[in-house]
């Protein structure tokens, strides 16, 4: 899959937050088969520093980092976070230095995005040379505005971040996929946020999503490494199912076995 100039082998993008330990995170990323992981930009604890740094647990030759602007509530702050993340990744020599997952929140309870601030930040970051991957709601109009603002990918949420509710409005996601890929079939649309379990990932691919970005569903599973494996296989299964083409849903049954040559009679008539 190509997104923002990067070619990814896996269609899963996995977050690095909320694991019990750095070792558990490292093993979960490995089990997921992903080659792109998200990270956040935060103030360093400079003078009473006891913790480990996440960069000691991520193989920078293996993973492309996707820095996010999580926790920002204004376009201005998100732009600052994006530029700081780029500076660190440039120093590390990681290919992720030229892109960003843009997230501008509008509400601290639902963690839903602020559409106006997101569009503003997207336009400015794209003008500044970033490949902008935009977290957004499942609103088709906002998705179109973000693409017009220069987003390299639009990433609608299945449901609120970390909620585990899966895809609450698959019809809106289908409309977004239809609108953004109309006349531009390779435009990447990534389902970001809300995944609870493997079937949610499969569904995201079955409706035509190009990739899925998830974090909490793995990190807070009882067994994160095993859930990471499940997500990997769910992504593969869903993508194959999409490419293969599902059968239409019908009201009535259609027999899989031949109707001719049956030895049985129908004692209650043709509808029996």
């Amino acid at each position, binding site marked *: 899959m190509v997104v923002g100039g990067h070619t990814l082998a896996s269609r899963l993008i996995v977050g690095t*937050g909320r694991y019990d330990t750095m070792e558990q995170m490292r093993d979960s990323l490995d089990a997921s088969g992903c080659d792109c992981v998200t990270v956040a930009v*935060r103030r*360093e604890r*400079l*003078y009473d520093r006891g913790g480990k740094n996440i960069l000691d647990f991520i193989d920078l030759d293996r993973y492309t980092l996707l820095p996010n602007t999580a926790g920002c509530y204004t376009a201005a702050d998100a732009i600052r976070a994006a530029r700081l993340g780029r*500076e*660190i990744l440039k120093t590390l020599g990681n290919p992720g230095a030229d892109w960003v997952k843009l997230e501008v929140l509008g509400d601290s309870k639902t963690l839903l995005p602020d559409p106006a601030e997101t569009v503003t930040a997207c336009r400015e970051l794209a003008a500044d040379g970033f490949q902008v991957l935009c977290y957004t709601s499942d609103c088709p109009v906002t998705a179109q505005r973000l693409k017009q603002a220069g987003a390299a990918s639009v990433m609608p949420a299945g449901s609120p971040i970390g909620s585990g509710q899966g895809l609450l409005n698959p019809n809106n996601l289908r409309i977004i996929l239809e609108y953004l890929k109309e006349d531009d079939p390779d435009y990447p649309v990534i389902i970001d946020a809300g995944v609870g379990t493997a079937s949610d990932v499969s569904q995201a691919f079955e409706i035509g999503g190009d990739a899925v970005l998830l974090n909490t569903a793995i990190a807070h599973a009882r067994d994160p490494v095993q859930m990471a494996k499940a997500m990997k296989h769910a992504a593969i299964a869903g993508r194959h199912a999409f490419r293969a083409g599902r059968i239409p849903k019908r009201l009535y049954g259609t027999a899989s076995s031949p109707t001719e040559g049956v030895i049985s009679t129908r004692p209650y008539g043709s509808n029996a």
Partner: protein
Amino acid sequence: MIEITVNGRRVEIDSEMSVQQLLDTVDVPPNYLAVEINADVVPRETYADTIVRAGDDVEVVTLVGGG
């Protein structure tokens, strides 16, 4: 002594110093950090030449786990 703000906390330092000198006082691998003064990123190649002055608002950030 001059007063600056580092990561939201007011701190006093002996005198104006370069970003490089400021970072030399902390125990973090410098390649894990990025620095901003008054909301503008300081490019790494200019750390030695960029002076932190009284009243400056300095942010020093790193990467952490996130989704």
